[in-house]
């Protein structure tokens, strides 16, 4: 132990007695400065290599305080601060304040973040007259496609003081970007690079003299790139089709892999605004906007599934033996009496007596009331759970909502009887049921793949930007939902008839077998929500979609044509007609249906 202390004495003596002069030199005449070389964030590409998130250089004008004991004056002279103010377009008093802050804290003060090039050029020219002023170049996030795919990409913002306190020595520094939403957030670990640095020896006026010889500069390592499953052409088609939709969402999934092809939420925002640094007022504006543009409705909003839920009711009935393809119930005369109440069918004139395929094709409520009554709440909600509803899908995006499948236990916990009235509502997708658009798209994908569960995901691979080596991201999945093969086929056949001869005619694509289901969900706050889910081609599905238009009215007339645009873009991605533009709102629906026939005819010849 005594020996140990002697070693310490020797260590101190070496520094203070032998090497004293060189260190005093370093401390007095020169100063060391750590220059952080910021690592660019990883880029994000769509499935075909289209760049969705990139880095661009940003110039920041700063004032760096002089080291203590420096003989240089530590404030900018009056003419110098006036000059800087003039160049940057800032009032003189603000410049002085910044200089004072820097000198008090010992940390550089940023006058102008992300300054335009012409301002930077002017400052650079007069730098000699502005001691302590520097222009710092750092990578800034840039989203070349602007609002395109904004919700799935998310955005990165400057790290807050609270985050710094908890993450500080994980390498985060003040001024760093950190993912706040979307993929930027869920893949923060991959996207973030490792900052490098170099130690400079600077002279008393703050100018660089040399590199500190004892420590080699460390190059920054850029973050890893993400390669998505998203096809920007499908994304674009759906966004354009929804250009007139005030609030709503659409999701397209490849049912073979679970890879998300497109994910749209309306209204959108421009993530570039966040990269440039958002003013407090603009942030306020975005967060208090009643249409909540930052909310990703595809995963963070939940809607009653409406009649799209009849797929679940059908599967429950078929697999529990309550019905088969030939079962006829009491015919539909526009409604159904139960418990002294009259439950309407949406078709007030009635459907007459139908079997399963036609009941689904025409979305007959009376038929499904009776299926629901035979099943009861338990068996119906069991099937919903088996079809992955009421649970987070596990998609690689943050803050996904769970939705709600109200089981008998759920009602019991709220002291409510899960009786006939309840099951009647649930059977047609109303009542307490809530689903996210992503869950609905996943439901369509599940039917398309005849029950093979593939977890929805957006990232196909993570790529090293230097070596180009890709590491595939493989979400768990591959489970099979236990429903007999023939039962799937009956539902698929019925869904095909929905489009061919039923309520979903506006999703028809000539030459391609499309299966779909319309939905119109009652909205206590206003007009009904329009829903549509679909997949195609029926014989070997490659795309499954869900479209929700808030307050849109009928699913068949509003949501189905949007889904159709998505399918066209997927099936003929480079066709001119696949990017036909905005689908007209409900009023013009009939006309849209007519034009639909025209352009599919042309597409066929493509």
């Amino acid at each position, binding site marked *: 132990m005594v020996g140990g202390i002697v070693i*310490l004495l020797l260590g101190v003596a070496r*520094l203070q*007695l032998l090497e004293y002069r060189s*260190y005093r030199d370093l401390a007095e005449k020169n*100063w*060391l400065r750590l220059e952080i070389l910021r690592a660019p964030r990883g880029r994000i590409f769509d499935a075909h290599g289209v760049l969705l998130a990139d880095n661009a250089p940003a110039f920041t004008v700063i004032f760096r305080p002089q080291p*203590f004991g420096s003989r240089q004056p530590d404030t900018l002279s009056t003419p110098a601060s006036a000059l800087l103010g003039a160049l940057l377009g800032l009032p003189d008093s603000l410049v002085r304040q910044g200089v004072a802050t820097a000198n008090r804290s010992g940390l550089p003060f940023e006058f102008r973040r992300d300054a335009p090039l012409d301002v930077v050029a002017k400052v650079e020219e007069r730098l000699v007259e502005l001691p302590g002023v520097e222009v710092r170049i750092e990578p800034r996030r840039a989203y070349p496609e602007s609002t395109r795919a904004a919700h799935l990409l998310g955005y990165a913002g400057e790290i807050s003081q609270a985050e710094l306190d908890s993450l500080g020595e994980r390498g985060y520094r003040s001024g760093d970007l950190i993912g706040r939403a979307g993929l930027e957030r869920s893949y923060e670990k991959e996207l973030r690079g490792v900052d490098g640095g170099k130690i400079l020896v600077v002279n008393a006026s703050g100018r660089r003299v040399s590199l500190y010889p004892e*420590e080699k500069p*460390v190059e920054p390592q850029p973050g890893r790139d993400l390669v998505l499953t998203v096809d920007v052409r499908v994304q674009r088609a759906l966004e354009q089709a929804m250009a007139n939709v005030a609030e709503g969402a659409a999701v397209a999934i490849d049912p073979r892999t679970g890879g998300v092809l497109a994910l749209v939420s309306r209204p959108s925002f421009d993530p570039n605004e966040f990269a440039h640094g958002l003013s407090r007022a603009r942030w306020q504006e975005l967060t208090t906007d009643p249409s909540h543009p930052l909310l990703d409705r595809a995963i963070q909003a939940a809607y009653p599934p409406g009649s799209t839920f009849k797929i679940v009711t059908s599967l429950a009935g078929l697999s529990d033996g309550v019905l088969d393809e030939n079962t006829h119930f009491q015919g539909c005369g526009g409604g159904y009496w139960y418990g002294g109440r009259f439950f309407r069918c949406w078709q007030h004139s009635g459907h007459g007596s139908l079997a399963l395929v036609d009941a689904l094709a025409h979305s007959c409520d009376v038929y499904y009331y009776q299926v629901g009554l035979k099943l009861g709440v338990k068996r119906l909600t069991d099937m919903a759970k088996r079809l992955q509803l009421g649970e987070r899908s596990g998609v690689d995006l943050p803050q996904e909502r769970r939705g709600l499948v109200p089981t008998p236990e759920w009602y019991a916990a709220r002291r409510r009887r899960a009786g006939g009235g309840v099951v009647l509502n649930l059977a047609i997708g109303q009542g307490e049921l809530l689903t996210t658009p992503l869950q609905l798209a996943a439901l369509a994908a599940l039917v398309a793949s005849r029950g093979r569960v593939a977890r929805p995901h957006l990232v196909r691979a993570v790529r090293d930007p230097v070596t180009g080596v890709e590491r595939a991201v493989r979400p768990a999945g591959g489970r099979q939902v236990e429903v007999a093969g023939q039962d799937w086929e009956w539902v698929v056949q019925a869904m095909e008839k929905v489009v061919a001869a039923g309520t979903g005619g506006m999703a028809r694509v000539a030459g391609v077998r499309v299966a779909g289901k319309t939905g119109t969900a009652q909205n206590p706050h206003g007009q009904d929500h329009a829903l549509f889910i679909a997949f195609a081609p029926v014989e070997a599905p490659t795309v499954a979609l869900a479209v929700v238009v808030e307050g849109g009215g009928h699913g068949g007339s509003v949501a189905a044509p949007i889904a159709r645009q998505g399918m066209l873009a997927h099936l003929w991605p480079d066709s001119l007609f696949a990017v036909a533009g905005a689908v007209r709102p409900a009023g013009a629906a009939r006309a849209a249906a007519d034009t639909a026939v025209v352009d599919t005819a042309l597409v066929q010849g493509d």
Partner: protein
Amino acid sequence: MDRRLLRQVDGWLVGAALLLAVTGVLMVFSATSMPGHPRFDYAMRQSLWLAFGLGAAFVVASIPMRAYDGLAPYLYAVAIVCLGLVLAVGQEVYGAKRWLGAGALRFQPSELAKLATVLMLARVLDDKRLDLRRARSYAVPLLVALVPLALVLKEPDLGTSLVFGAALVAMLFWAGMPTGTLLLAMTPVANAALFLLTRGPWAFAAVFVGVLALTRPRLPILLLLVALNGAIATGMPALWSAMEPYQRGRIETFLNPGHDPYGAGYQIIQSRIAIGSGGPLGLGYLQGTQKGLEFLPMKHTDFIFSVVGEELGFWGAALILVLYLTLLVRGLWLARVARNRFAGLVAVGVTAVLWYHVMVNVLMTVGWAPVTGLPLPLLSYGGTSFVVTCVEIGLLINVSVRRQEY
């Protein structure tokens, strides 16, 4: 404590500790102030801790030593549970989970574990029937030290976890473990550690030959040791090169936790410049320049010695080290003169813990050891660690006042 006991208090020990603690308050004030901008808040809080620590030391010294023997298992159990809790629900600060509780009430269970482990080891090694020439006698002491070591390592806090090893080795030695056996038993650990530090087998090979020449073990043991260390020496480089760069990076951050390599290197350079520029006489109290700049972010905690070196110069730094030396020498002296074996073991354990902290911290500030985040006892700003050090000094005082008792 009655008057008779008070007269037995070791003046050297108390004097050195008090001088260090008061210097600590003054240095914390200097480290947090800048020329023309005095800051009193840190120094005030440190003074409060000092007052509290004095009280704690007095209370600890007043309780009869026998009580600690009985208390040890309970204290140890509480410490282990707290360490487990830290891993389960602890607060993450700087990328490691080391704190329990929140706000003013948070504390580092690893500090409590240091005390509890020393007491528990002393209790275990105090057994008259313990025969340290038999291998199985080591099972219990080894377990007592390794459980907290592993838990703290998991936080991760390599620097602190090794303090349990230091206490174990010192106390085993004091309990009568043959020196040769102790040295030989430590060779595999030294082997792996030296490889990671030097990235080559040669440093260890030299140490190993030295140890063997010194201890001359019997042939079967010699063969066993050579085989074991040979396997480690050949296995480590293979393991190292088979690792992915990011895994190596992880080990490097593990050896050097919480800091990116570049940042840590920079801190050490700044610390060396601060100490070196102090020269023989120093720049004078409150006159240091390096502390005011943006480097040395932990100047009032882990890097307080750099401020001492810069402002008080070599003679000031040497005086501080001599004060520590006094503390350690008195600790060992107390262990020798204490008639009670448990008390002696406690004195050795506490002294080893203090020694380990001083060594690791000062070696870090002069750039001869990696940045580990261990405080300098009594000098560094900090609540839990400061009070625990006071309790440790209290235990030494306790030994000193009752050194005549059996």
